[in-house]
């Protein structure tokens, strides 16, 4: 389920989708710091070293484990779309998903 930084702790052990800005990529390529759509900073852990240089905005899919997310797959937003991307609107959409019962809620 789509979450932001504030919601992440509620999903420990569950599958999550997080979208945010890449702040820092660890030299070993196994870990990345991400600033989520609501401005929180979280750690992403990959099970294999990254094959490409992750930068800009990325949407990651994986499992939440405490304050980290173990990443299974990701989608890097095309560089030229970053400027136009409305992060605030996205965050509001995420909050909306969690405010009421709807089709995006996966129990």
């Amino acid at each position: 389920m789509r979450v932001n930084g504030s919601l992440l702790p509620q999903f420990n052990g569950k599958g999550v989708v997080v979208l945010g800005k890449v702040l820092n990529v660890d030299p070993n390529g196994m870990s990345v710091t991400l600033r989520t759509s609501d401005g929180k900073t979280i750690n992403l852990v990959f099970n294999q070293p990254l094959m490409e240089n992750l930068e800009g905005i990325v949407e990651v899919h994986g499992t939440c484990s405490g304050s980290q997310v173990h990443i299974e797959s990701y989608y890097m937003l095309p560089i030229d779309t970053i400027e136009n991307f409305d992060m605030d609107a996205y965050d509001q959409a995420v909050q909306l998903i969690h405010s009421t019962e709807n089709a995006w809620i996966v129990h």
Partner: protein
Amino acid sequence: MWNNPGGFDGDFSGTTGGGSGGGFMNTTAQFGSPAAKKERRSQNIIATTVKCILDCQEESFTIEGMEVNMVCLVGIIRSVDISSTKISYTLDDHTGVIDVLRYPEGDAEETNENDALAEGVYARVFGPVRSLQEKRHILGFRVVQVDDPNMITTHVLEVIQQQLMLKKLKSSGAGEGSGPVLANSSLLSGPSVPGGSGNSDKDLVYRVIVQGSSSESGISKAAVKASLQRKLAADKIDRLMEELASDGSIYTTVDDEHFMAIEST
């Protein structure tokens, strides 16, 4: 009595003009009113999630009791399988995974490899839900790559909005409150209205339209005729509606068949 078919028109992208939500039109067809069209299948497109499609227990895909003709999905292409007869994608929207099948277009005998999308990109899929051997898939009438990531946000919101809209329609349809429009009940309501003075036929027609104006796309001509079938002839209603339109009391909305009154209930 007559359901108000105008209540559903035009609310969803891709609804074909004049084809009111199929479920509503059916009652009119049965009574053979002069304006009735043949019973037609629902023609609608609803933005939804893979989970919704796979979870639905009904034989034909429905959401909140509404039969859905086509869906709009947005998700990541996880796999692409190109054969000469078809292109088969797996679409993952994080609520589930579903197959999307694409067949050669028009006269083409074989699929065009160059048309296929790459794995790992976001795509938007439009098409009907079909079943094959108990398993549901989508016929990808239109499969296009999502270039603007704001589309992700938009789709999230569209799904929620349409789901809530359908829920609301379902609950208001079940209750008797806002549904039927009765000519005699409107006669008893309020002071004279812009449509005309007193209880003239023109006034009758006008009041029916006012009642129907509570929906976003107003009321269809067919619905007005259906409501007044016993009181006024269809061609008389046509004439009166033309007069009301040139008076400026009513105006067309989504197409030439739908009208709204300048005054709403």
